[in-house]
C-alpha cells in the first residue's frame, strides 16, 4: 500500500491524470456541477440565490462535519463519534443560553464553551486511539455512547428552543449577503491556513505510512491526537451551525450524521486508508449529498421512495468517485 503515493510525483503535468493528482476533488466537482444542472433542469427556481442560500444554511453543518472527519482520515484514522459530539455541543450551548438569558454576550460565551466541549471530546478520542492504541472504529463507537450519555444528562428530552438572537443571526442578511456566507468565508480562510500548516503534511505522512513517519522522527502519536482535536473542534463548529438551523436542543440530533460525514469524505476523493485527500473535496462531498437529496425531491419521487433513491444515488456516487480517484492515483 505505501508505494501508491510514491508514484504520485512521477506523473506529467498538464495531462488529465496530472490534474486529477494535484486536485483529487475534481471528479467530485464535476458531479456537483452536474447535480446543480439537473436541479436547475427539474426546478429552475432551485438555482435562485435564495434557494442556494437555503441549501448552504441547511448543509453547512454537514460540510463542517465532513471537514472534521477529513482530518482524522488524513492520518488513517476514523471517528464514528462526530455525530454524538454534535449532539453534545448542541445541548450544552442550548442549556447554557437558556440559563443565562440569551443576550448577545452570553450567547458568545455559550458558543465558546461549546467549542471547548468539542475540543475536549476530540482530546478524549485522541488519547484513547493514538495514546492507548485502541482500534479507532470500535473505540470511537464506545466514546460516542459515552458522549450521548453526557448529552442526555445535560438535556434529557428534546425541545428547549434556542434564543431568538441566535437563530435570527444565523438566518439574517448583512449588507446584502446572508450571514451563512460570512461563516463560509471565515471557514474558507481558516481551512486555507490549515492547509498551509506543517501539521496537514504531517498528518498525511502518518496516514501514508505511520512506520516511515515514525522512523523519520515525526511524533506520530501527538500528530494523531492533534487530528482528533481538529475533528472535535470542527464538529463543535458544525454543532453551532446546526443549532442555528434547527433552533432547538436535541440530545440525539447528530446520530444520523456520522455516517454521512464518512460518505462525504469518500465522495470528496480522500482515501479512507489515509495519506491522500483534500478538505475541499469533503466540502464538495457534503454538498453532493445535499444536492442529491434535493434533486430526488425535485424530480417528483413519491415520498416513500425518496430514501431508497437517495441511498442508491449516494452508493453510485461513492463507487464512481472511488473508481475515478483510484484511476488518478495509480
Amino acid at each position: 500500500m505505501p508505494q501508491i503515493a510514491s508514484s504520485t510525483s512521477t506523473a506529467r503535468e498538464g495531462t488529465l491524470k496530472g490534474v486529477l493528482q494535484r486536485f483529487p476533488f475534481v471528479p467530485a466537482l464535476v458531479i456537483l456541477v452536474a447535480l446543480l444542472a439537473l436541479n436547475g433542469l427539474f426546478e429552475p427556481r432551485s438555482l435562485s440565490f435564495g434557494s442556494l442560500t437555503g441549501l448552504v444554511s441547511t448543509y453547512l453543518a454537514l460540510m463542517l462535519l465532513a471537514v472534521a472527519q477529513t482530518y482524522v482520515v488524513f492520518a488513517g484514522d476514523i471517528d464514528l463519534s462526530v455525530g454524538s459530539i454534535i449532539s453534545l455541543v448542541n445541548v450544552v450551548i442550548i442549556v447554557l443560553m437558556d440559563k443565562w438569558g440569551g443576550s448577545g454576550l452570553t450567547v458568545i460565551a455559550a458558543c465558546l464553551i461549546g467549542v471547548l466541549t468539542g475540543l475536549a471530546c476530540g482530546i478524549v478520542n485522541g488519547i484513547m486511539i493514538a495514546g492507548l492504541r485502541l482500534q479507532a472504529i470500535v473505540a470511537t463507537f464506545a466514546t460516542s455512547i459515552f458522549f450521548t450519555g453526557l448529552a442526555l444528562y445535560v438535556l434529557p428530552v428534546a425541545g428547549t428552543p434556542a434564543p431568538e438572537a441566535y437563530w435570527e443571526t444565523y438566518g439574517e442578511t448583512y449588507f446584502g449577503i446572508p450571514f451563512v456566507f460570512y461563516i463560509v468565508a471565515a471557514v474558507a480562510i481558516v481551512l486555507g491556513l490549515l492547509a498551509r500548516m506543517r501539521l496537514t503534511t504531517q498528518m498525511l505522512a502518518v496516514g501514508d505510512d505511520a512506520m516511515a513517519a515514525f522512523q523519520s522522527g515525526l511524533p506520530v502519536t501527538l500528530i494523531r491526537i492533534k487530528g482528533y482535536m481538529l475533528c472535535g473542534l470542527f464538529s463543535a463548529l458544525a454543532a453551532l451551525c446546526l443549532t442555528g438551523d434547527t433552533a432547538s436542543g436535541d440530545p440525539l440530533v447528530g446520530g444520523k450524521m456520522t455516517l454521512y460525514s464518512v460518505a462525504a469524505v469518500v465522495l470528496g476523493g480522500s482515501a479512507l486508508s489515509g495519506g491522500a485527500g483534500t478538505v475541499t473535496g469533503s466540502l464538495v462531498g457534503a454538498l453532493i449529498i445535499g444536492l442529491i437529496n434535493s434533486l430526488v425531491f425535485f424530480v417528483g419521487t413519491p415520498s416513500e421512495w425518496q430514501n431508497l433513491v437517495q441511498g442508491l444515488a449516494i452508493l453510485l456516487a461513492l463507487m464512481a468517485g472511488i473508481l475515478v480517484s483510484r484511476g488518478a492515483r495509480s
Partner: protein
Amino acid sequence: MSTETAVSAIKTPSRAIEFLKRPLVVAIILIAVLLAFGEALSPGFASPTQILRLLIVASVMGIVAAGQNLVILGGREGIDLSVGGIVSLAAIVAGNVMNGADGGILPAVLASIAVGALIGLFNGLGITLLRIPPLVMTLGMLGVLQGLLVVIRNGMPSGQAAPALASFVTQPFLLGLPGIIWLWIAIGLFMAFLLKRTVFGYRIYAIGSNEQTAYMAGVPVKTIRVGLFMLSGAFAAVAGFCLLGYSGSSFANVGEQYMLPSIIAVVLGGTPLAGGKGDYTGTMAGAVLLVVLQSILTTIHIDESGRQMVFGTTLLVLMLFYGRGRAMRG
C-alpha cells in the same frame, strides 16, 4: 541452544499468565464477575431463568457477529456495516412469507437467507471487482437498505411470526434450552469446523494475514472474499429470522442495534479488526459479555444518561484488556 531457551523464557513468562491473557478466558472471567456483581446488586439476576433469557438475546447478537467475524478475519479492512439493514429486511421478508402460519416457516427461512446472501453478494462484488473499501461499500449498502425498508413498510403489512417459530425462540426445546440456543451452539460448532478443519477456513486466515502471499500460493482470493460477505449476509438474515420469532412481528429498524455491537462482540472476542487471527468461540463469549453488561445496566437504577456513560466507559476499559495495537519503536 541456550540463547534459544533464554528468548523463549522472555517471550513466555509463565504458562498461567499466557492462559489468563487469552481473550476467551478473559471474556469468561469477566462474564462470571459481572454475573456475580449483578446477583449482589439485585438477587435473582444470575438465576437460571434469567441467564437463559440473557442467552437468548446474546444468541441473536452472536449469530450476527458470526458473519461479521468471518468478514473481519478475511482482512483488508473487512467489515460489514450493512448487517443492521439485512437483519431488519430479513425479519420483514420472513414475516410476510410465513404470515403467521407454521407451514410457511421453511419457505420463509429460505427466502430470508436468499435475500441476505444476495445483498452479501452485491457487497462482495463491489469490494472485489470494483475494489471499493468494505467500509464504504457496506455503508452505502446500509443507506440503500434503509431506503428499501421505508418503501416496504409503506406498501406491506409488517408480517407475523408463526407460533412454532415464536416457541422455538422463547420456549424450552431440548434439555430445557430454547431452540435458538441450540441453533447458536450448532452455528458455533459449524464455525469451529469451518475455520479449523476446512480448506476454506485455512484460506480465510491466509488472505486475512497476507493477501499477497495467499494469492501467490494460488488461493482464489476474490472468490473467498465474496463468499465471506455472502455468509455475513446469510447469518444476519438468520438473526433477523430469529428476531422475528422473539418479538412476534417485525417492526421498523429492529436490526440497527446490531450493526456496531456485532463488531464490538468480535473485538471483545479477541479478533483484531486487522483480521488474520482469532476465532468464533471468543466472539461467542464476547457477545454474551456485551449482553450481560447491558443487562446489568438496565438492572441498576440510574438514568438513561448515566447508563450510557457507564456502558461507554466500560467498553473502553474492556478494550484496554485486549485489542490494543502495537507500540511503535524505532
